[in-house]
């Protein structure tokens, strides 16, 4: 009898084992590392309990990185969803060259983060950047603006670049959600609602709001764990102006060679991400994903 009961579990083993190896082991190892002083250039790996967590939280960088990550998420995620939705609505229309415009809009999606960062560095570069050049040509400025070297402007610049890279995915998913709306509903709405805004709010939005929520959660997590753009564009600087928590994991681990502290930051990021998802889903109406 017991063999029959174990039979399904045994069949699942080939799938479960790699999953366990690829996820549980690294997580367990990271947890072990976060409780030890693992510094690549120092001998030994003594147990330090929660010292890494305490030191990281009390460090100069953590408060800045946490604040930056939260502000970055709060700014970038809604921007991506709002702009992505507006672009998707626009691209639904039929006009000459719409296919070309759709391809151009999707272009950032095919670029790796590092390449996008290089492009944006050339846009924001103080001496020979496109943006300063344009502003100078329009006689709006005389000298140059340090888009990536002034702390506040650097933060804004990184948000802009991040939003640019994330919009295409949002556009694709919103367009998919829009395509799923019954055409008759839209035709009826076109007759009943003269105002485009009312048509969107009362007819289209209810049909796509589940997708919008998914996109908000997805974009919040993507922004909160963003790393590559910051690394390539500003290196977390100037100072700590664009240091995000995910970048701080890298800095602790690979710049200061303190894997214990790096793992501690990683676990803190996981914890905050979980709280973030919970908070977003709690804030939503309970019938959101139900049939309407």
């Amino acid at each position, binding site marked *: 009898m017991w063999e029959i009961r174990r039979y399904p579990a045994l069949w699942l083993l080939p799938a479960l084992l790699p999953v366990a190896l690829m996820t549980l082991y690294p997580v367990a190892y990271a947890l072990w590392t976060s409780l030890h002083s693992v510094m690549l250039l120092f001998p030994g790996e003594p147990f330090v309990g929660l010292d890494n967590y305490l030191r990281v939280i009390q460090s*100069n960088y953590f408060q800045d990185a946490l604040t930056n990550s939260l502000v970055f998420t709060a700014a970038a995620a809604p921007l991506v969803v709002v702009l992505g939705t507006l672009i998707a609505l626009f691209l639904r229309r039929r006009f000459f060259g719409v296919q070309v415009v759709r391809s151009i809009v999707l272009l950032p999606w095919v670029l790796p983060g590092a390449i996008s960062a290089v492009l944006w560095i050339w846009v924001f570069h*103080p001496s020979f950047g496109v943006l300063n050049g344009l502003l100078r040509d329009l006689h709006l400025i005389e000298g*140059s603006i340090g888009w990536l070297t002034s702390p506040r402007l650097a933060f804004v610049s990184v948000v802009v670049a991040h939003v640019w890279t994330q919009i295409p995915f949002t556009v694709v998913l919103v367009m998919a959600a829009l395509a799923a709306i019954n055409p008759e509903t839209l035709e009826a709405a076109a007759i009943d609602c003269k105002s485009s805004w009312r048509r969107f709010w009362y007819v289209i939005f209810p049909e796509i709001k589940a997708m919008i929520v998914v996109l908000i959660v997805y974009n919040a997590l993507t922004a909160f764990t963003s790393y590559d753009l910051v690394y390539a564009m500003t*290196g*977390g*600087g*100037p*100072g700590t*102006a664009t240091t995000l928590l995910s970048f701080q994991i890298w800095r602790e681990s690979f710049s200061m*060679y303190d894997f214990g502290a790096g793992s501690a930051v990683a676990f803190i990021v996981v914890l905050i991400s979980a709280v973030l998802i919970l908070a977003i889903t709690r804030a939503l109406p309970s019938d959101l994903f139900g049939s309407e």
Partner: protein
Amino acid sequence: MKRRTVLAAATLLAGSFMAAQPGQAQDVTLEFVVWNYSLETIQDNIRQFEAENPGIKVNLTDYTWPDYQDSLILRIRGNTPTDVVYGGQDWLPAWGSAGFIAPLEDVAPKEEIEALAADVAGFARTDVTYDGKIYGLPYYADTISFIYNKKILADAGIAVPTTWEEVTAAAEKLKAGGMDKPIVYEYNQELPNFYDAFVAQAYGRGAELFDAELNPLFADPGNGAYQQLAWLADAWSKGLVQAETHESKIIPAMNTGQHAFTIVYTYVLAALNNVADQPRAGEFALAPMPGATHSTLGFAKSYVITRQAADDPERAVAAWKLVNFMAGKPYTVAKRWAVEKGLGFGQLPLFQDQDVIEAWGKWADVKELGAQAERARAGTYTEFSSVWSAYFRPLLAKAMVGEASVEQTMKDGAERWNQLKEQFASR
């Protein structure tokens, strides 16, 4: 069938005997790891080495400068075969202490190493020494220079500044005359040279950053390093400084004629004054680092041999041959770097070399350069200084742009130094 088996066995035996013949040095393949500066020159040097040493093949691996130490540490910790590597003065004590690299006396006669080291400039020798033992020979040795545009200063009737206060006055005058940002500064907290440039400026004021027991002194407002950070923050707040993320961007920026001063590795002056590709070549010169002593930071990058190579007799011999070819007498490779690329050198006899004097004379005042090398001082490097520098650099960057106070920055930096010192001592 039996005959065939015997034949096969005989062939195998013969093959294995041939493979085991002593003196077949072509079996030695060295793994040489560098950062990716001028790879074509490195590869050409390797070709020449292989031609002179037919028994040895060299595989070259390169990493970018910002990622170099991370990549190398992970490579060595992961036991990836690695024999000879570029080392940096700030990393050497940590690598030596961690057992990543071996003292040269473990792979070559001590007298031979001492004879080579006797030719090396004082600060460069300090930079390749850890725990009383020499771990490397200089790949290049250089100083950090205060560079200015002669034409801009002459046109504006400004004398070459000798103190940082005079630099401010000159920059303010140029700004009033329409130059938006007279100073261009390599501002990249991820690069070790960001800290090195700061130390060089503090040395110009005559600052000591640490005492003999490695206690930090820079948090004292009377210390030159403290004053220099205050000066930088002040220059930034007055809008005198244009930040650039890398020396490669400083070169075109200075060549726009929109900046008069910069502080960079001396070899950058060679690129600035390169008539082949710089429109304002010839306009740039170095001046003594502003401050009371005009001292600056001297440093050496070196060829070092890994512990794993030192522990394998065949690889150890081959690795030493490679290091000796690259940095040893008659200093052909060091001279090549100096003549072709303007890299500084630690091997003092090259200062008398006519080819070097002639080549350097095209982009610098060789006499001034020699005087600067004499005034240069080595930095303070310990087992944990590279870890500390990675921590401290963003704090410096933050203070420069006015996001943190100088007092708090220096206090935090000193505290972290003491923490690491204690942490390392307890291991």
